[in-house]
């Protein structure tokens, strides 16, 4: 396991270094009367969407690991959940920063109360709450935060459905880009880069937690002697 880290780091670095060049070569989406600024803003899509996908993947990992921790009491699952929760917040931040930048150009506003936007924000907030509880909850905070992750996962479809219905009552127009054939390869390349980065960070972060637990255990052992 340990010998995989360095190659994975190099691979992720290489992929992120190559991505911008591939992006420049990708065809622009043809929008009627689009200014160059709008066309350029579409490039952010290659970072925005993969981050969002990785964010949801990470949330899923966190939820499942938390459920395993709650019911089977496996400490390793709890450490994995904590690492995944941090990554949800990190990748979520990328999504929530890149999204409005694009929206300002494409929709003319920074934020829309659209179903997808709102549920992403809510998911991000749930995992922020997870980290807050973990950090400041004191004794027994691990179980509390695990429950938060499980409930948070169950909550996502409800938020999506409720905001979706709410919005169809007050419709707003929006532009949803569809993927042109030339863009598909570049897009999946970016997704892959983000997934590699995610896997690497997750493994490293979980390992750090493992080390912390080990040190804690050793301290206790040394105290006893």
């Amino acid at each position, binding site marked *: 396991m340990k010998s995989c880290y360095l190659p994975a780091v190099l691979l992720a670095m290489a992929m992120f270094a190559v991505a911008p060049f591939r992006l420049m070569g990708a065809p622009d989406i043809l929008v009627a009367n689009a200014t160059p600024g709008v066309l350029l803003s579409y490039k952010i899509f290659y970072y925005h969407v993969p981050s969002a996908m990785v964010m949801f993947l990470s949330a899923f990992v966190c939820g499942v690991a938390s459920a395993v921790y*709650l019911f089977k009491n496996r400490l390793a699952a709890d450490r994995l959940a904590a690492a995944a929760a941090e990554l949800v917040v990190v990748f979520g931040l990328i999504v929530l920063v890149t999204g409005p930048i694009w929206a300002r150009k494409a929709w003319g506003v920074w934020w829309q109360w659209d179903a997808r936007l709102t549920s992403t924000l809510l998911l991000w907030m749930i995992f922020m709450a997870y980290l807050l509880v973990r950090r400041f909850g004191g004794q*027994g905070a691990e179980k509390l935060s695990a429950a*938060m992750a499980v409930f948070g996962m169950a909550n996502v479809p409800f938020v999506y459905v409720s905001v979706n219905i709410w919005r169809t009552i007050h419709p707003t127009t929006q532009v949803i880009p569809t993927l042109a054939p030339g863009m598909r390869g570049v897009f999946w390349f970016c997704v892959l880069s983000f997934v590699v980065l995610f896997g690497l960070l997750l493994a490293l972060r979980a390992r750090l937690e493992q080390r912390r637990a080990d040190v804690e255990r050793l301290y206790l052992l040394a105290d006893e002697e």
Partner: protein
Amino acid sequence: MFLRVAWLVMRKDLTVEVRSREVIYTTIFFAVACVLVFAFALVREGRPLEDAAAGIMWISVAFAGTLALGRTFERERHSETLRALMLAPASRPAIYVGKLLGIVLLLLVVEAVLVPLIGLLFHAPIASRPLELAGLLVLGTIGFSAVGTLFAAMLVRARSRDVMLPVLLYPITIPVIIAGVRGTAALFEVEPAVDLAQMWMALLAFFDIVFVTLSLWTFEPLMTE
């Protein structure tokens, strides 16, 4: 047996409350103060903002509910009775259901004061569709309390529980708030949109079923030290 334990726990809570009236008085007062603060913010020249009544009603319910949940469990913590309750030879889910019923009844009493006040101060037609309004309130209160009871019970042991309860509770109960506010707003229109309100009630009922089930399922592992 299950229902009997739930009934006894609920009766115990209500008896304590009827004798001290601590939570009910403070919560009602707090809810009324909340409505007044909103009235100062949202009533211009004697005319309330359109749609404001539904929002104010549900925000007040959510705020008052958080207060009531915190106080109810603070009482248990203060006299170490939650531990005694957990030691009792009764199934944990039954204890949860008893606690939940107690809090739901408490909040319904608060709402019985709050709703007429909103009708009075914000000219909301609360009597035009009383059955649907009551349905929305009951379903919403159950959903809010289902999550709230679980988290408040877990937080009894945690440090900084007063801060943590709203931090955990509000992101999770957003669907309840959305469905409650939109459903109530539909009923408060000049021509009450009953079918819309019924659809929101269906969503609330579904939310209640999922989250009560999830709470019953996780209460046991969460309350085990």
